[in-house]
């Protein structure tokens, strides 16, 4: 079978990334072999996986106050800039709500960390983090965002912020906005021809042969 045939095998007549990707979406996969009661099931998933996802989606973990705090924090970590939108525009808070249910080890450190942050702000500014001014919020974050220079008493905050920062990056760069921002250029049928010449030249690798 040649490549053109392979594209035909996927039910297509021309190489088009978006079309091919659509063709690979489970909802459009016509198996023709599935039994009637299975026609609604997602291809390539075990029954228990689908049930588990449904259950997680039906639960709510964070309170609205916690979600508001997560949203402010996420946008401090990844704000809008010239290239792309903010974490909240990429629905990072919604991702964090899901992932703590999916990976329950996140639950207590996130809930406790948010509480720790609020208490710090109550002591400093007599209000919770979300109600503090932007300047106050940043002053607080500056004390927990740099692990190596943070004061020892800020350690719980540093640990929390590390987790919050990583979850924000995970959520952002796996969104449409984030993938475009980072410039990932793959996930599409192509002919890999090796490193482009100008890149080889840039790094002086023209003569390296495997």
């Amino acid at each position, binding site marked *: *079978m*040649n*490549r053109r*045939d*392979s594209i035909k*095998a*996927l039910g297509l007549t021309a190489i088009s990334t978006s079309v*091919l*990707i659509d063709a*690979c979406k489970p909802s459009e996969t016509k198996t023709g*072999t599935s039994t009637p009661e299975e026609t609604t099931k997602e*291809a*390539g998933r075990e029954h228990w996986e689908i049930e*588990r*996802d449904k259950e997680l989606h039906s639960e709510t973990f964070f309170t609205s106050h916690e979600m508001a705090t997560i949203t402010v924090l996420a946008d401090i*970590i*990844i*704000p809008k*800039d010239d*290239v792309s939108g903010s974490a909240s525009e990429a629905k990072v808070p919604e*991702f964090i709500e*899901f992932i703590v249910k*999916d*990976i329950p080890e996140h639950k207590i450190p996130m809930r406790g960390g948010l509480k720790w942050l609020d208490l710090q702000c109550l002591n400093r500014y007599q209000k919770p983090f979300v109600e503090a001014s932007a300047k106050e919020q940043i002053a607080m*974050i500056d004390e927990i*965002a*740099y*692990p*190596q*220079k943070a004061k020892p008493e800020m350690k719980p905050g540093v640990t929390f912020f*590390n987790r919050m920062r*990583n979850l924000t*990056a*995970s959520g952002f*760069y*796996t*969104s449409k906005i*984030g*993938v475009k*921002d*980072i*410039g*990932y250029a*793959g*996930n*599409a*049928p*192509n*002919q*890999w021809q*090796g*490193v*482009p010449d*100008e*890149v*080889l030249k840039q*790094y002086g*690798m023209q003569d*390296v042969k*495997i």
Partner: protein
Amino acid sequence: MSEFQIKKSPTVYDAIVVGSGAGGGMAAYVLANAGQKVLMLEAGQYFDPKLDAHQLKWPWESPRRGAGTVRPFGDFDASYGGWELDGEPYTKKDKTEFEWFRSRMLGGRTNHWGRISLRMGPHDFKCKDGLTDDWPITYDDLKPFYDKVDRMIGIYGTVEGLENEPDGIFMKPPKPRLNELFIKKGAEKAGVKVITGRGAVLTESIKGNNDRAPCFYCGQCGRSCKVYGDFSASSCLVIPAVKTGNLTVITDAMVREVITDKDGTAKGVSYVNRRDLQEYQVNARLVILGASACESARILLNSKSPQHPAGLANSSGVVGKYLHDSTGASVSGFLPQLMDRKRYNEDGVGSVHIYSPWWLDNKKLNFPRGYHIEYGGGMGMPSYGFGSGVPVMNGMVPDRNGKMKDAGGYGASLKDDYRRFYGTGVGMAGRGTAIARADNYCEIDPDVVDKYGIPVLRFHYKWAQEEINQAKHMQETFLSIMKEMGAVVTSKIQGRETNYGLEAPGKIIHEVGTIRMGDDPKKSALNKYCQAHDCKNLFVVDAAPFVQQGDKNATWTILALSMRTAEYILAQKKKQNI
């Protein structure tokens, strides 16, 4: 009448094959194509990469963004299964850390493996150091079958002429990625040989094969391939074998035991259906086990009868013994030279583009045999965990203005750093020869059954000093390569307290050796055709017959051995010996 009854099928097949992975798939393929009526039992559910692969999905199509919560290798990985299966425990004793990966699906673990396809070499079959038992066959015995597997399934690589790294019949290899050129340069300075990888991915079409299309370079072999561009037992063996009309596949069939006649020969297999929990018995003129090294051993040990009191094919007592998995250790970091690199699609193939075959002479080393090195890194698709190293790395190298800054941060400057560091990652992992030892074994746990009432396996495994020394050598080599290529190491520096990062046995998923071949029935369970010494119509075709692995990944040898066994079966049938 009691509802509890065993459903017995009146059909007598020519052969029953247990398991649909590389070994079972190949045996069924050869036999079905030769006109034999074959029944295959697979413990897991049906899986066809064409329909079920998560290939070309984007990270946002997974609510967990590809995290490994429900699938150990990520949400898009093809495997139904993992290190733990609900209701199917295994146990360990004497502080053993063995981990057992099971895929319950048509094609088994071949749906999601790395497609790294290395032949074992002449010295892997007949060792030069006298430390381990020789195989009852030589490389030359197996070479014609490796050749046939290459032609039939397809493999890329380059002819190198290395003594113990035999060349195959290769398709053109994929070109190296940028970080792989850095690796090549750095490794050479460190005295480590780097050659083109060898992978079971179609970089060219196979003449006359209209079912499989060449690779379109998405780099996602682990998700399995919708156009069958790589090797999976499901797409390349079982599904084509079904099309002959001679192979019947029953999925969700969890085998309990092989049933033997009064004269001790195998007459069939009993299994429980995972869906309806009913008991079944099916009969055949011969039984072929390809359930995986440990699962096949489990079936034999559970198949006790007056004729086979220690379990079937186990009069020697070796079944379960000599379990060994490849050693593994790794190092990772990043290449500061690649910061702010130009973006382009470098997905390439989903197997390795380059690797280092074992390159040293053991005379000056404190461990036997050796290891090969697999390399990774580059501009991959973001998934859960993306960027977690950036708030550490940004304190290790100067910023855009040439100044050092504090690690961590937030906001516009951190967002810039995520972009700057993207695609700079580089990593390497060793896969080495572990020595087959009788005292590393799996056995039946006398106290524990799974949810089907089948007695489970209990593992006993200890790494020896030789393997720990090998891991230490890996670490030193990797750090030296990283240094020579100008990389910054970010993974933990492993020392004696962690056995130099030596992974727990089982973790590399190359476990072999539990039903070993040999010429002496007192010291081995199978003869040189993988036929049981004690039971002439019983064969084993997975990695269990391996006497001693090399540092080579097991799949290509499983395929060649299974093909050889199946052809032997056909020849013996012709002579009416079985």
